[in-house]
């Protein structure tokens, strides 16, 4: 086995045996299992109970019921109350969630559920419209046709189906997992580098292997541990999704999992390079946090950007972020889960990420070579890069 393989194997074994890694894996599996369990228990909130005080309120409730049926929201249960006071009492006692007491007045204990608020407004509007149409003297048999809007949906995308709830869930889970893993394993790389400097063992190691071999082995070994965890999360996540019987597995789930794996590898490689450079220039683990802050800020920014993509995967911004190397690892799985990213987009994103990696690798290797044996104090990236050119070959 070559030097890189030996270094990677050491990282894999020593860190793989560490309590931190074992605990993290147990926590992940438990969290996913709990998530599935919770979605089973809390998944169905039951119908919204509406207390109606008079006929007008009853009519409003019926319109709301129809609208909810159309948009697929939770159903409503109408409770008839004698008057406004009785309706209010039902809400106070918790027998009803909302009371409609005429004149568009809604009584709630706490607040109106967010999803319901705009629909209540719409229901009131459409009732008013019906009244107005009736007032114009339109014969009653014509009134529905007059009010009937006409909407024809034409799918101009290449995909047959609009994204459903399950695929959004998959996308969200994938992005959170990727974000967490990139940060955790990227920091392991930086920390491992500093620990070797701080313990001074690096001088013994670098007298037998080159700095580049040491760096490559370390990134590879830690990356493999991360890959193991991605597979664990993907496996447990998919199993959980299938176990939750009320959610149908989204079409193309396999493709999304493949995307997540591929983008973990590329994203990890990119961010590990940045973390490696920050780790190389400090000499004490205590100084690492501040040195690594810029890289963590970049990942955080990419994560927040990906949340916009999650809201609107089809937006131009999401399309652009799917190509930018530092955001692509988080955004491409989202677009993939939404059935958007074309094979061309995936290829272009991968090509750009590889190109960025190609630029980054020699720079980071040189910074690392220039800094790895400077076990005192902290040096700037520029200083490290400069002394990396004439560092001993090892």
């Amino acid at each position, binding site marked *: *086995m070559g*030097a890189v393989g*030996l*270094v990677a194997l*050491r990282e894999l*074994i*020593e860190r793989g045996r560490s309590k931190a890694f074992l605990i993290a894996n147990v926590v992940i599996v438990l969290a996913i299992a709990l998530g599935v369990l919770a979605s089973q228990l809390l998944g169905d909130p039951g119908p919204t109970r509406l207390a109606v005080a008079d006929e007008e309120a009853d009519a409003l409730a019926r319109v709301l019921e129809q609208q909810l049926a159309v948009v697929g929201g939770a159903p409503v249960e109408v409770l008839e109350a004698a008057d406004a006071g009785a309706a209010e009492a039902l809400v106070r006692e918790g027998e009803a969630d909302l009371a409609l007491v005429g004149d568009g007045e809604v009584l709630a204990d706490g607040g109106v559920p967010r999803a319901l608020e705009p629909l209540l407004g719409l229901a009131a509007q459409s009732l008013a419209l019906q009244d107005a149409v009736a007032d114009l003297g339109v014969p009653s048999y014509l009134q529905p046709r007059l009010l009937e809007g006409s909407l024809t949906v034409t799918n101009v995308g290449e995909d047959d189906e609009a994204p459903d709830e399950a695929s959004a869930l998959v996308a969200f889970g994938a992005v959170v997992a990727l974000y967490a893993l990139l940060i955790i394993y990227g920091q392991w790389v930086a920390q491992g580098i500093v620990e*070797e400097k701080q*313990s*001074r*063992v*690096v*001088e*013994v*190691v*670098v*007298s*037998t*292997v*080159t700095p580049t071999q040491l760096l490559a082995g370390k990134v590879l070994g830690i990356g493999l541990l991360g890959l193991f965890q991605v597979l664990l999360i993907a496996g447990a996540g998919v199993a959980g999704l299938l176990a939750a019987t009320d959610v149908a597995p989204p079409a193309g789930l396999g493709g999304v999992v493949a995307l997540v794996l591929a983008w973990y590898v590329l994203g990890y490689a990119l961010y590990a390079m940045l973390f490696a450079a920050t780790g190389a220039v400090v000499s004490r683990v205590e100084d690492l946090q501040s040195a690594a802050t810029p890289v963590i800020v970049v990942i955080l920014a990419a994560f927040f950007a990906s949340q916009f993509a999650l809201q609107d995967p089809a937006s131009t911004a999401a399309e652009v972020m799917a190509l930018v190397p530092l955001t692509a690892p988080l955004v491409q799985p989202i677009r993939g889960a939404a059935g958007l990213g074309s094979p061309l987009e995936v290829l272009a994103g991968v090509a750009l990420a590889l190109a960025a990696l190609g630029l980054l690798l020699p720079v980071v290797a040189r910074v690392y070579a220039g800094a790895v*044996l400077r*076990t005192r104090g902290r040096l700037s990236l520029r200083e490290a890069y400069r002394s990396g050119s*004439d*560092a*001993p*070959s*090892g």
Partner: protein
Amino acid sequence: MLELSALGRRYGDVVALDGLSFAVEPGQVHGFVGANGAGKTTAMRIVMGVERADAGSVRWRGAPIDAAARRRFGYMPEERGLYPKMPCARQLAYLARLHGMPKAVARERAGAWLARFGLAERAGDKVEDLSLGNQQRIQLAAALVHEPDLLVLDEPFSGLDPIGTDVMVEVLLEQAGRGVPVLFSSHQLELVERVCDAVAIIDAGRLVAHGAVESLRRGDGPDLVRVDVDASAPSWWQGLPGVGLHRAEDGRVLLELGPEADPDAVLDAARAAGSVRHFGLVERSLAERYREVVGDPREAVGQGR
């Protein structure tokens, strides 16, 4: 044979090495002494490829050192360090494999060195859980575990207790007995004198004395003769050709005998002056020699850095 030739290294305005040349022969235990900051560590780091030379070169077995040759070197850096959380046996086996040993052999050698140092039952313990003395032993084992072709040890005796020192001496002699050149730096001149076949003394990055311990001690200065004579005339030796006073010592004198001096004539003159209680050639110690070429050895002894 390891040859350092005309090595130069500057750090800004500091000249760490200034044309340093000497060679270490196979099977030789070779000491490397000099005051703090003389450039010993820099020279050894250059040999090990973890520091760059501005000028000069290092050759091993007649050729420039490549990665494969260097993998066969054993090294103990001035600043010790191992993976603190890695168990002893796995750590030694890992380092042996980095140095090119097959897995099974690496494991076997790691176990053998642990047993040799009486640490067999600590094989599974993390290095950081060992006492400082035992950590030093693991560090030495790390330099030896791959059966190196050359040993470069930077102040291997610093911080060792007397038993640790004995073990270290034993190991160095044993390795030299295998034909391995052993280069080590030290401030303990008595120890260097006792253990080494040859010594290089450097000062401010330059070689100031080099050679076999025997000839180094004698040096090229005058022979010293100590004479204790019950003489009425204290300056009985005056007028003898090539003879001068080195030091008067409470009734006795230490005389310098130049090349033209005749020891027999000195003894005759002493007899003539009174009854001779002692007459003998003085062996100079390495420390004395060191004082002559560098300055007060007390500056070099002790604290380390």
